[in-house]
């Protein structure tokens, strides 16, 4: 299990290569990469604030739950903080399992929990405004799928 919270940009491909190469019993690897979307070409940057200490703890808890629930071989969560440019990768999760069903479901689960249970806050900065992104009711509702 690998949990990384960092400011530096990352290449999802490099992360996936290393993650896949270290598997010894997995038959299926799923990755999810979130990219900063440029909403109509006005976004200058996305600023991501987080709660150091709690972030790592929350991500570790979520990953541990997925690991047990789907009997996974491995999990990786990487989330950036600080200033991001449009179309840059914000975060990534990867899951490795014996079979594809577990790998898919666990990655989907990790994303749902990460969206509304990990202490990150996004602020969108354009040339003339800066606004905190509102949480979506949908994201909260998505969690009920896993209960």
């Amino acid at each position: 299990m690998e949990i990384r919270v960092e400011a530096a940009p990352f290449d999802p491909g490099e992360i996936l290569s290393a993650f896949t190469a270290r598997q010894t019993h997995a038959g299926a690897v799923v990755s999810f990469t979130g990219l900063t979307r440029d909403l109509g070409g006005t976004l200058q940057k996305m600023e991501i604030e987080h709660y150091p200490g709690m972030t790592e703890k929350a991500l570790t808890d979520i990953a541990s739950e997925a690991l047990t629930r789907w009997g996974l071989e491995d999990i990786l969560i990487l989330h950036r903080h600080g200033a991001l440019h449009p179309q840059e990768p914000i975060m990534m999760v990867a899951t490795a399992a014996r079979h594809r069903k577990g790998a898919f479901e666990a990655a989907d689960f990790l994303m749902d929990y990460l969206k509304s249970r990990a202490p990150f806050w996004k602020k969108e900065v354009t040339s003339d405004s800066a606004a905190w992104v509102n949480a979506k009711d949908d994201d909260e509702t998505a969690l009920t799928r896993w209960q």
Partner: protein
Amino acid sequence: MKRDVLYFAWVRERIGEGRETIESDAATAADLIEELRQRGPNYEAAFADITALRVAYDQELTELSAALGETQEVAFFPPMTGG
């Protein structure tokens, strides 16, 4: 007792700082909010709508009505928008 109180995102921006140490006998985060509101309009603005707030005690999400007990670190923030 003395506790570290942390603020994030627009809660932090409205209050004007991210962390302070507060001496309080509040039994819950909701009680603590009542005390904080007395500190000025910046606190009133941050805590105007507590349904929009989330709270963590010692880095675990909980409810505003939960007993603070021996909690050392209380954090207030808006709903999270990770991912």
